[in-house]
């Protein structure tokens, strides 16, 4: 429990400490404006729709991926996870290449003599959020399906369960345990959305809380209001968490013997076609925009200036360091949260920490000790680790709960504790989610979740910062190449860790 307590303290200090530092500098909290409340309403509504749609669509996709086997399935599962780890600016470019005014969909519609559609507006925001989060939801649910012990599936088969009966007795309890957590994570991601909502939102009607914070900092320099808005975001996080905790119920399948699942996919061509169509559509929706980014960027890759490669190297180091830190925080938190819910709270909080509040608070807290520019990389590592923590925790938690329920008594009766327990029980049983969590953290911090302008130092920029520098210097072709490099590196990290996890699992 001690490591979990330390991790909790570290997270609380980072999220609430920075908020307090900003409020302290301002001399208190400021009143919110009418426009801020409108922003809060839009933020919550779009996040509700985006999260609900993402998990609802993920159910058939994950189910089809779970019960069908075909060549290239592993690669497809990995590839479909990729949009989640894309930096917002790259993902938006990819989506626009497909759905934009000059995108392939509109070109096709025009060729058919149909009116063009516009992606800009609330619909575009939701579309982009589903694009980002459907992969996360699918993977979290797929883990849920894989975690149903194969003995239960066998029993269902020998009892001659129809797909409907399997759904009712096995799949629904699993969904009840997994869905609320996945929904919560996605709801909170969408709550903190800034660049996506602004670029695709089409105008000030799509103002999110994060943009209101941005405005308070930069347009009005009203730190007091920024702190209030930051607090509002934390309050929304707590409320959403309370709701999802009420809905989630433990599944209680009991332990299995880890025998390889014998697949008996439901027969009948209707179901087959249905699964095929579901997987095909999801794959096309997720993969085509990414392919568009790659196709545009790859030709210019060899001509990239040296500084971009140096930035890529720096980003890799940051990503690996942040991943190590994330796992160090997430594993003890997940194990502790399996026993006591309050640890889950702490690990979820960073999701709604505004990067701008975080950056400014850290700047205020640290500037007495060293020049901000010398702290750029360590601060980036710390912030990326904190911001990736909720996703790592969300991935580990269901498995950690099952581990606790199924093996805790056995481990206790064998007197298994400390490092022996970690080595013989915890790590092997959590290998798959651990690998996924590590991949997620590494890829996410490659894409730099928080833009920490106050610490940024262009001479030691990370790849996403360098990408922005290229765009700011009119070098859009180089920026496109840097974007595809970023995508390839993020995906490579993600894939390597993910593979590591699923092989250890065998």
């Amino acid at each position, binding site marked *: 429990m001690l490591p979990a307590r330390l991790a909790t303290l570290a997270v609380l200090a980072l999220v609430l400490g920075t908020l307090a530092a900003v409020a302290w*500098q301002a001399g208190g909290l400021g009143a919110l404006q009418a*426009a801020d409340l*409108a922003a809060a309403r839009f933020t919550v509504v779009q996040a509700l729709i985006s999260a609900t749609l993402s998990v609802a669509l993920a159910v058939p996709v994950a189910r089809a991926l779970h019960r069908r086997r075909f060549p290239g399935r592993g690669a497809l599962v990995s590839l479909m996870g990729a949009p989640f780890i894309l930096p917002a*600016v790259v993902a*938006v*470019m990819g989506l*626009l*290449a497909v759905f*934009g*005014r*000059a995108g392939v969909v509109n070109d096709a519609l025009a060729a058919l003599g149909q009116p063009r559609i*516009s992606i*800009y507006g609330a619909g575009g925001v939701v579309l982009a959020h589903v694009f980002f989060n459907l992969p996360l939801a699918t993977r979290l649910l797929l883990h849920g399906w894989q975690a149903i012990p194969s003995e239960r599936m066998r029993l269902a088969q020998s009892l001659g369960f129809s797909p409907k009966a399997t759904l009712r007795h096995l799949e629904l309890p699993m969904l009840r345990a997994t869905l609320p957590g996945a929904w919560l994570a996605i709801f909170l991601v969408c709550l903190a959305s*800034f*660049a996506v909502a*602004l*670029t*695709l*939102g*089409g*105008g*000030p*009607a799509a*103002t999110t809380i994060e*943009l209101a914070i*941005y*405005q308070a*900092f*930069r*347009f009005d*320099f009203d730190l007091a209001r920024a702190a209030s808005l930051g607090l509002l975001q934390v309050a929304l996080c707590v409320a959403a968490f309370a709701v999802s905790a009420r809905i989630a119920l433990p599944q209680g399948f009991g332990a299995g013997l880890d025998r390889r699942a014998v697949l008996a996919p439901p027969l009948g061509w209707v179901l087959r076609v249905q699964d095929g169509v579901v997987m095909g559509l999801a794959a096309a929706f997720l993969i085509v925009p990414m392919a568009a980014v790659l196709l545009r960027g790859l030709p210019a890759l060899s001509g990239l*200036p040296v*500084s971009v490669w140096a930035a890529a190297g720096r980003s890799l180091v940051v990503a690996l360091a942040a991943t190590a830190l994330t796992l160090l925080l997430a594993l003890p938190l997940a194990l502790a949260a399996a026993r006591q819910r309050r640890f889950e709270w702490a690990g979820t909080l960073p999701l709604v920490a505004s990067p701008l509040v975080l950056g*400014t608070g850290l*700047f*205020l807290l640290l*500037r007495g000790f*060293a*020049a901000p*520019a*010398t*702290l750029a990389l*360590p601060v980036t590592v710390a912030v990326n680790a904190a911001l990736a923590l909720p996703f790592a925790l969300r991935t580990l938690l269901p498995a950690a709960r099952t581990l606790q329920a199924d093996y805790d008594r056995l481990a206790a009766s064998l007197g298994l504790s400390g490092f022996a327990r970690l080595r013989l029980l915890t790590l092997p049983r959590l290998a798959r989610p651990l690998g996924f969590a590590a991949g997620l953290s590494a890829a996410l911090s490659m894409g730099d979740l928080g833009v920490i*302008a*106050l610490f*940024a*130092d*262009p*001479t030691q920029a990370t790849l996403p910062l360098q990408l*922005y*520098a290229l*765009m*700011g*210097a*009119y*070098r*859009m072709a180089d*920026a496109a190449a840097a974007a595809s490099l970023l995508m390839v590196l993020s995906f490579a990290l993600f894939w390597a860790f993910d593979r590591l996890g699923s092989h250890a699992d065998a």
Partner: protein
Amino acid sequence: MRLSLMLAGFLCATAAQAQDKPVLTVLTYDSFVTEWGPAPIIEEVFERDCGCDLRFVAAGDGAALMARLLLEGDKTDADVVLGLDTSLTAQAAATGLFAPHGLAPAPDLPMAYDDALFTPYDWGWFAFVYDTTRLATPPKDFIELGASDVKIVIQDPRSSTPGLGLLLWVKAAYGDRAGEVWAALADNIVTVTPGWSEAYGLFLEGEADMVLSYSTSPAYHVIAEADVTKEAAPFGEGHYLQIEVAGRLAASDQPELADRFMAFIHSPAFQGTIPETNWMYPATTSPAGLPLAFEWLIWPEKSLLMSPQEAQAARGPALAEWRAALAR
């Protein structure tokens, strides 16, 4: 452990260098210090005979620079701040952090600008840039634009300097009628981006017919890409000016070096880098003149500019108008 060692190393290195030569710290925006910006050349030339270490510290963009200054207050290490524009100078002057520069007004601005605290180093007009192969006849003013079905992409005034520039442009041109103009523009706006880069990227991808940028943007495409299809549309109301300025901090621990740098700003070496690195007009044209591509740019007959005080007072109400007209 390794991290703290690295940190200690950093700090020692910084301290050791500081003992060698006096350090002059210039706080500026990101794009000024990248390898494509003016800073590398300026640093090399200035360090040749100042006997000092010129250090650029970057802090996001112009507005982030202001925020950084307000956060740090009199504890800032900066000796010179470079990169504020006239929509921010009233706020900057009010901090009381700046000292008079004592320099003569810069000669090559399209309208007189004299400020005891801030000296201009470059300037440009905001303008809508379009692609001549996609849009044959661009609108001639905001009214024609509002009535047309030309699609534009603009930046959010709450998060972007050009976005704020457009807000003040419409306000300066139309005063109380600005709200109506925005209402007419609403259906032309494809989207509002957080910063200049996203908007310009969307325009180049063909998402909009025109983008809010600078009248000098086409020069980049001519010089760097030999592409002559990008042009700025001249608007009948006149074009809003952006004047970028530098100021020296009263609490600087290197007052002589700071003054020397402020004077250096108007030297041919500094000003000569501006057109092709910052893609703006120099405040004091160097004897070598401007690059040829700059001669082909539009030269608006009328410049619009609010005084720093007017700009400061106008932006709150103008933002409310903008939001009301666009948030339908």
